């Protein structure tokens, strides 16, 4: 058993053989999620693995639920109203406004690669996909209903009973609706980006300029927060490390109209959760996977282009001004992070 302690410490191998049964199961679960270890190097970024095995029936059922307006209280919107596949499972609008609902306080986050996230939503309030789904469904400004109400409604619509009976032994039940949705969300991974292929040894997968951009991304310090499999997503960080975040100054620098202020405490990041002053404007570091597809940027969607947001990040987070060619290289690197949708299984 001591050998395990040594093993874990020295070799960082989580796959150390273990006699602990409970731990075994958990580790097995964790292992499923881990990227292929062959690529284990000192690289701060890991390639995205291919999706773990999912229940195809439930995924298909979840996909139908995702598109169905029956999931909203007034039967007017579906999940797909805000999360568009073509837009990297996010939305082009800075603040999305659909069907007589108030505009969202924050920019709609992407659903791509959801199964590899540790925290959900901009302030990381949830670390469990099912709990997060609960909160969205019950939020009157989003779906405004409950799982049991949805179940009752689906029971009267044609076809659903049979499909649930095929996917779940217990048939159409509130918790099964959620389970199917979560299963579908787990299927939305987008591996095989050019940069992944490059990480796995295909030297020609990205251009020379993009590679230079990656080196800049590393040497300038971007990578200290945007690291790991998702290039972000596993840390919380303040917006405005080297310079205080000021939306008005930012808009002015971009020669943009100041965004119409959406009155919301959500702008304050984790502060809304903890009430601690040090958490003001602290957000989950967004993943940069598919970042080229998910404009606009920042929590409030106030920055329209990748080039602008790269400059802003350099200035506010790193305290540095990038030359135009450096900016361009980094943008070219970010362009190589767009993966491929895996499509229906």
């Amino acid at each position, binding site marked *: *058993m001591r050998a395990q302690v040594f093993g874990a410490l020295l070799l960082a191998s989580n796959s150390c053989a273990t006699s602990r049964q409970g*731990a075994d199961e958990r580790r097995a679960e964790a292992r499923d999620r881990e990227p292929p270890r062959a690529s284990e190097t000192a690289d701060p970024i890991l390639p995205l693995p291919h999706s773990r095995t999912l229940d195809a029936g439930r995924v298909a059922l979840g996909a139908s639920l995702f598109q169905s307006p029956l999931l909203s209280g007034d039967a007017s919107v579906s999940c797909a109203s805000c999360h568009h596949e073509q837009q990297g499972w996010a939305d082009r609008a800075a603040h999305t406004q659909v069907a007589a609902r108030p505009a969202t306080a924050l920019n709609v986050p992407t659903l791509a690669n959801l199964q590899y996230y540790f925290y959900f939503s901009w302030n990381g309030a949830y670390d469990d996909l099912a709990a997060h789904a609960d909160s969205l469904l019950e939020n009157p400004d989003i779906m405004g209903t409950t799982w049991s109400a949805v179940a009752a409604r689906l029971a009267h619509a044609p076809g659903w009973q049979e499909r649930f009976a095929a996917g779940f032994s217990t048939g159409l039940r509130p918790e099964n609706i959620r389970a199917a949705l979560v299963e579908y969300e787990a299927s939305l991974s987008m591996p095989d980006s050019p940069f992944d292929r490059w990480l796995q040894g295909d030297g020609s997968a990205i251009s020379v300029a993009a590679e230079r951009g990656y080196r800049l991304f590393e040497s300038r310090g971007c990578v200290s927060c945007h690291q790991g*499999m998702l290039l972000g997503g596993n840390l919380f960080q303040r917006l405005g490390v080297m310079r205080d975040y000021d939306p008005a100054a930012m808009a002015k620098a971009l020669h943009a109209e100041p965004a119409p202020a959406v009155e919301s405490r959500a702008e304050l990041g984790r502060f809304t959760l903890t009430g601690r002053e040090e958490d003001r404007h602290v957000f989950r570091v967004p993943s940069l996977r598919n970042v080229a597809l998910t404009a606009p940027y920042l929590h409030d969607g106030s920055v329209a282009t990748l080039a602008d947001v790269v400059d802003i990040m350099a200035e506010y987070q790193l305290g540095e001004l990038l030359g135009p060619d450096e900016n361009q290289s980094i943008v070219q690197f970010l362009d190589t992070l767009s993966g491929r949708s895996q499509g229906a299984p």
Partner: protein
Amino acid sequence: MRHGRQLLRAALAACALACVGGAARWLGQSLDPAAEAAYRSEVRLLGIVAAQVDEDLLRAHSGLVAHYDDLARHLRQLRRVLAELALPPAELGFELGLAFEQHLGRARELASLEQRAIERFESDSAVLRNSRQYFPVLLREVTQRMAASPDPEFERAAIHAFEALAYLDVLPPSEASGRLSAALDELAGSNPSTAAAELSRRLELLQRHGRTILERHASVAAGVQESMAIPLAREALDLYESYAARQRGASLASRSLLTWVAMLGFASICLGLTELVLRLQTSRSALRRTSQELERANRSLEHERRKEQEIGELKTRFVSATAHEFKNPLATILSSSEMLEAYAARWDETRRALHFKRIQSAALRMTEMLDEVLLIGRAEAGVLVPVPEELNLAEFCASLLQGLERSPGARERVRLSCRGAEWVRLDQRLLSHVLGNLLDNALKYSPPGSPVVIELSVSESRLDCTIEDRGIGIPEQDLPNLFVSFQRASNVGTVQGSGLGLAVVKRAVETQHGSVEVSSELGRGSKFTVRLPLAEPAASDALPLLALPAVQSRR
């Protein structure tokens, strides 16, 4: 009267039946093995995950990992385990349940404390990494710009800044920050005359990042300290202990129940309820079995708990030892390689060679330490199996002494004598671990020039070996822990060492069923005596090697 007695009999019978039924139900409740095993594994998992989080944190701090995925995953696991531990099993009873509840509450409190400490660490350390990665880049850039109009003063200042940066994690915080701020001042003061607008902007940035490093470094170190000081893993152990207490309680309760049931059995015999007696007897033997089982489970639980405690202690020692022992060579490698990268072109051959040498010897030191740790680990896991082979003692000794040539003057100090048969049957690798480490220590802990005497004598079935030095000796209070990993005697002073050598010796000797003894006088010297039984010549020369678990190395 007769009617009354019948009524009494009936009442007693009913009472006895009810008691037996109750006992059976009670037992059935306290022994729901599946639920209990699941719960127990959750409690243990808590300890394991808490320890993993500490490890992740330390690795992240020492720069050995490049991303936070593992840390984030383990944190999430920690939260999930705590959530699943929400309810203690119902059959705990009121008092134990209360104690358990208290422990759980405390564990949860600690977890949220740790969570906060980790969040602070993560955010500060990400900023620190920003600046640290950016700092050398900028420095290099500034130096390049300066190259157009060479300025030796500035160049020296830049080198100092580099050095200060490399030693940031090695030196005590106050000294490290003093160095860095001095270097930054020097840098700022060295140059104003040549400052073009662009250059001065760069310099300003450089200083800003330097200041960030200074500001954050202390809080990052404090964050790790804070988090490591939160005894979450220890609390999980306590939880475990209260489980053991619960088991003991259950076995006591079942014993008093036993006597009660026996008395009732007696009463029912008197009343001639033979059928009841039979039933009671069955449940009695079941009870005895159960209480024995409980005692056994209790013992094994206690054993595991002690083991777990040992692991915890070992981990703490390992963690503090690695922090120092692995970081020093790492920092050497980092600083030398950075300097080579920046100045190789301008340096002469000897200066370059010096830095390459430094890198090599640092890497070598780390490799040796890893080897030793792995050997200990394998010995403890029971997969270290000696492979005896015929070996020529004289040749072996010659190669042992040859290994000393790396350190000047060592070879001349060793007086070696061999008696008895020339060929012995022993595991050569283990023998060289044993003698090599003892010889190393003898040389290291005695004054330069003083002799070290090795005597080997081979008898019929045994190799006896003594190694004697006239060095600093070992204080008496340190003798009991002499062979424990990462324990070093209190009088080692500034002599470098990992505290692994003697632990390796002991493991290597014991796997060969030998013994090692020490006698020492403080200030006069130490004498180690090793006795190794010679291996029987095997029928087939090739002993089957136990397969080792595949070991993945991480660059």
